[in-house]
């Protein structure tokens, strides 16, 4: 009898441990069940510019024509009459893994000064590896002139990952940009003396604001604004608060949304909700003192590539929600917040392809660039 009881207990024990392992495993491999696939679709997707490469970023002129970066190293002006003009004067670009020509951002006063900003992967010495550069140039007669590198990251690597590369201006004229950890997570993100795994803040001429958080810290990179990031590639300025919001590629199960605050440590790789792609643990810590919790984290990961706040009145109740590109699942994710808590998520442009950038045009139409397809306009059904 006693033996039977032990046997039964051990069977129960084995059953219980297996169950918890299975559940744990499921947490990381499950389909995304929390996101809604709407039954009724009240918009059309109109392909406005075809391109079979990767359009990494788009920016709108006042006339709503588009300046687009192509990752392989092209800058194209898509005019409203259908013409495509190749802009001359790009620097040599390091095409390696995820690196190439990345973001483009117009100066807040672009209409007058014609200044624009670019991020691109850069290799100083061939074969030695590279990192991310930020540059400024003036657009004149379909050429970039007065080309000037404003920031050159010094921690180079031959690894193909995590160049970051998003640019955004805030209301005070500061330019923010991201550089990912360059695949060197245990070295770069937590070290203020090294580039990589950071959000940076500079003035529009490349000089460094004296009130940057680590300006007076000896040997620190003075342009750093926040640290402990993995690979932030989505960034927008919140229209109400003026704050910079980012989404970043985490490891498996660790993609995040963060509001960027001065001088703060966002924890990578000391804390994360994710695990290695291989399934092994990075850290058991999900929180630690003096490290920020994300506003939201995705399980499973969506591979967030871009981020935009919907300001337009053209889309009814979409106004005020966020759009994030899900490279992995090939849709845009519309995220509704209530008091900075995610309360609803739905799929937009499902199965269209891998989104790289999403942005509102001057006349309030959401545009999304899709890898190997081109730029689509989301047109509400009347």
């Amino acid at each position: 009898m006693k033996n039977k009881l032990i046997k039964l207990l051990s069977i129960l024990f084995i059953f219980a441990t297996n169950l918890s392992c299975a559940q744990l495993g499921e947490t990381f491999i499950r389909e995304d069940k929390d996101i809604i696939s709407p039954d009724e679709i009240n918009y059309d997707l109109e392909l406005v510019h075809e391109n079979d490469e990767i359009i990494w970023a788009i920016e709108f002129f006042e006339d709503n024509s588009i300046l687009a970066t192509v990752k392989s190293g092209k800058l194209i002006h898509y005019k409203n009459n259908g013409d495509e003009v190749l802009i001359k004067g790009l620097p040599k670009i390091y095409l390696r893994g995820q690196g190439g020509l990345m973001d483009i951002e117009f100066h807040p006063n672009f209409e007058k000064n014609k200044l624009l900003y670019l991020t691109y992967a850069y290799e100083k010495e061939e074969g030695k590896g590279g990192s991310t550069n930020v540059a400024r140039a003036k657009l004149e007669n379909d050429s970039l002139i007065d080309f000037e590198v404003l920031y050159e990251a010094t921690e180079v690597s031959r690894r193909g990952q995590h160049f970051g590369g998003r640019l955004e201006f805030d209301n005070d004229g500061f330019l923010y940009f991201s550089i990912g950890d360059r695949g060197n997570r245990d070295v770069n993100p937590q070290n203020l003396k090294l580039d990589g795994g950071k959000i940076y803040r500079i003035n529009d001429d490349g000089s460094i604001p004296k009130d940057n958080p680590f300006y007076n810290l000896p040997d620190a990179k003075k342009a750093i604004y926040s640290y402990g990031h993995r690979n932030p590639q989505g960034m927008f300025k919140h229209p109400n608060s003026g704050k910079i919001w980012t989404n970043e590629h985490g490891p498996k199960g660790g993609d995040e949304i963060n509001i960027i605050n001065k001088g703060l440590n966002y924890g990578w790789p000391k804390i994360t909700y994710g695990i290695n792609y291989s399934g092994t643990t990075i850290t058991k810590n999900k929180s630690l003192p003096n490290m920020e919790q994300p506003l939201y984290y995705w399980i499973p990961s969506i591979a967030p590539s871009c981020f935009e706040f919907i300001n337009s009145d053209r889309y009814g109740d979409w106004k005020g929600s966020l759009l994030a590109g899900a490279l992995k699942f090939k849709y845009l994710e519309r995220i509704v917040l209530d008091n900075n808590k995610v309360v609803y998520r739905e799929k937009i442009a499902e199965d269209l392809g891998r989104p790289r950038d999403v942005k509102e045009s001057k006349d309030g139409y959401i545009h999304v660039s899709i890898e190997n397809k081109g730029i689509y306009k989301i047109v509400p059904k009347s």
Partner: protein
Amino acid sequence: MRVLILLLFPLFLFSQKDSLSISIENGRILYDDFCIRCHLPNGKGQIGIIPPLAKSDFLYEHMEESIKALKFGGIDGEIIVNGVKYNSRMEKMGLYNDEIADVMNYILNSWGNKSDLMITEEYVDKLKK
């Protein structure tokens, strides 16, 4: 089949196991860096989206085209791998030719794949678009 591959592609058969195993080990590191996110740790890809590399009929039947895809960036149009259609072009990874050889040797000797043929840097050098 093997004779056919030898005739079609000037791959070099190396008797020294060492250079192949070094190449495979280098290739594993490169695979984990450049390929693993899409083709996954088991080389199975994602059905209908990312073609498998493990026991892929396409890879063996179109070896040269596959290596060219790695060198020049993707294959245009639809391909059928193990009976499933794929139509998403891989981007150019910017690997050096010696790295392409290494990662191919890793792929050709992983997840049940087996090949006595070693891809060399010289072979990748000669491939034209």
